[in-house]
């Protein structure tokens, strides 16, 4: 899988390059600011761009803006936004631009769990989503009374993992369940939240995220 990295700190940029190359990715370019990122993506057309939110020259949210622009102008490239902090507002902006998936938003800390991080990059590159658990808990935590309250604790766990963008198989492994049991839970969740059933993992995730976003603004 071809990857472009945008990260202004050389230490982290090189570390990330090494981590990804050791795990079978091809890092076609690693840049230090938002303009260079846009050029690199146009030139290399990678499957994934990993973008730090805070980039020069303003060190504010240049990376996020570039990522949103890339989603519009280069739909073939998925973007995984990473940051030292997560804000639910940024996740909303990214998801609004996501359309058919291919976005991710993770704390930089998550690279500590290499397997998990690599899995997230791959998932995003394949058109899925990866949402940081902190964002998910913000999404789930902020609502008042809602159908989410009717879920059993187990279903809630499944919902959280789904919202993070994980596949049914990954959820089954994480919760030590069979894939069949996970599918049952998911069917029950969709029924309780009154969502139309979808066939693929990615579609289900997007339906759940759309639901959480919607009911949050309602």
């Amino acid at each position: 899988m071809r990857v472009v990295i945008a990260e202004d700190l050389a230490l982290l940029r090189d570390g990330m390059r090494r981590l990804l190359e050791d795990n079978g990715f091809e890092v076609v370019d690693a840049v230090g600011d938002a303009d260079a990122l846009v050029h690199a993506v146009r030139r290399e057309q990678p499957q994934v761009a990993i973008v730090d939110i805070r980039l020069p020259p303003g060190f504010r949210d240049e990376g996020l803006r570039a990522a949103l622009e890339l989603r519009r102008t280069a739909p073939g490239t998925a973007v995984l936004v990473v940051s030292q902090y997560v804000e639910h507002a940024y996740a909303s902006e990214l998801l609004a631009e996501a359309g058919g998936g291919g976005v991710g938003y993770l704390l930089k800390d998550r690279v500590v769990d290499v397997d998990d991080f690599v899995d997230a990059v791959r998932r995003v590159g394949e058109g899925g989503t990866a949402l940081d658990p902190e964002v998910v808990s913000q999404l789930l935590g902020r609502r008042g009374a809602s159908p989410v309250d009717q879920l059993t604790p187990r279903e809630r766990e499944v919902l959280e993992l789904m919202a993070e963008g994980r596949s049914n198989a990954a959820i089954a492994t994480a919760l030590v369940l069979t894939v069949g049991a996970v599918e049952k839970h998911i069917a029950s969740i969709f029924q309780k939240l009154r969502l139309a059933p979808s066939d693929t993992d990615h579609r289900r995730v997007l339906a759940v995220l759309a639901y959480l976003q919607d009911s949050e603004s309602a």
Partner: protein
Amino acid sequence: MSSTKRLLTPLVQSDTYLVFVFLFAAVPLGAAVLGLLIGGWVATGVLLVTPLVVPAVVTFRVGTGLLAAGDAALARHLLGTDVRPRLASGGKGWWGRGKAVATDTAFWLQQTYLVIRMTVGFALAVGMASLAGASLFFLTYPAWYRWSELHIRSWHFDTFGHSWVLVPAGAIGVVATAWIARALGVVSRWLVTGLLAERTPSLPRLTTRDLRLRALRIHAAVSGGVSLILVAIWALAGHGYFWPEWPLMPLLLLVLGTHAWVEVVEDVPQLRRHRALLIHIGLVVQFSVFYVLIWALTSRGYFWPVWPILAALITVGLHGAGASIWRATQLRRRVGVLETTRAGAVDEQEANLRRIERDLHDGAQARLVALGMNLGLAEQKLASDPEAAQQLVAEARAGLVEALGELRDLARGIHPPVLTDRGLPAALASLADRSAIPVTVDVDLPERPPAAVETAAYFVAAESLANAAKHAGPATVTIAIRRHGNLLDVRITDDGRGGANPGGSGLTGLRRRVEALDGRLEVTSPAGGPTTIHAELPCES
């Protein structure tokens, strides 16, 4: 029919009768107030030059507060107001207490209220009792006419038939009494709230331009009205010599001239400091022109205008001297305020840096040391005991994640990145997301305030929210931020148990932060709640 019904409603509403009770309460209250005021003022006057004056005024103050609170409690039950007057004025030390009483606006307003209740309230009680009594008497007159010798001029109501004539008058009287009682209820409510409620400065403020336009309208209306009246008098008095020209000329000259001056002075920034003086000079010039004109148009003999002009110039001189003294005082006071707030800001900064250093030292730094030790051990065991090494590396990773989390919280506490990137609404929404208590965020701003103001507003909200969560145990918290003129108005209300200490370290820190920006912070937290933290931050320097 419905209008008749509406006319009679006050008669069947208990509110009307409760107002009566409230009005009659003025009689015993009035007696108590009379005693209090005489006792209080005489004691104060007699003891004025002795130190005993302090306990005297403090007692006087508490007595006033008790009577006001008692009457307010009555109003709460009878009129449905929600006003709880303060009993004491605070202040520290012997003289501090006395001074606090003398400068306590609430004390003077409570006295004003009590005096009004004693005088007007007493008169109203008597008046309403007579009105109600007379009306009822008329209404039931056919039952009494035998024992009454009532007559109006030569009309005697001494037969059963005649006695009925008064019944409609009685009915009208009863209905009128009820309506008057109702109106008096409204006035009383307004009086209680207006004079006894704790005052919070009212917003929004008017701009100078609004005030100028308002002044122009009032001046134009007054001078126009006076001119019309004078011309009308002149016309009614049979024309003749048009004498109104003499009063009208200075009137118009003054009004138009003054406003022209104000416009000119207002639009020249350098002159703004001396505006009052310049307006004064302008008026004097206009007067002088007027006198000289009269002199020129009339006899042109002895130049008498020199005297009024001289007098006017002396007033200008006094004004100028007064203004410069006043300005010097203001400047000195301002320097004092700036010194205090700067010291506060520096202390606050210092305390914050110390706290950050401590958090780093005890938190992330310690964790990183432990992590380094684990990695060192793991390196040692890599060859001999790979399983133990793996365990140590896993522990190191877990410790690292915790250290990162702590650093992130610390960074957010110093300055939340989302505040810079997206402004107050997003930053406060994020704050609300993280809070365990449901928080309503209500921000309505036409534009982003300056960064320093934005940050201060954010921290006022964050700190108040943290305080509420820690001490008040509220069910909900509301954060409301508005822009009034050039003031940013930040209000955090929680429905917890109240009793917040405005002198506590958290609130003191906030106050210093706000005062460093020339703002104000106000904490209202009666025991039992609700608590409101209200900050006003100027958005322009």
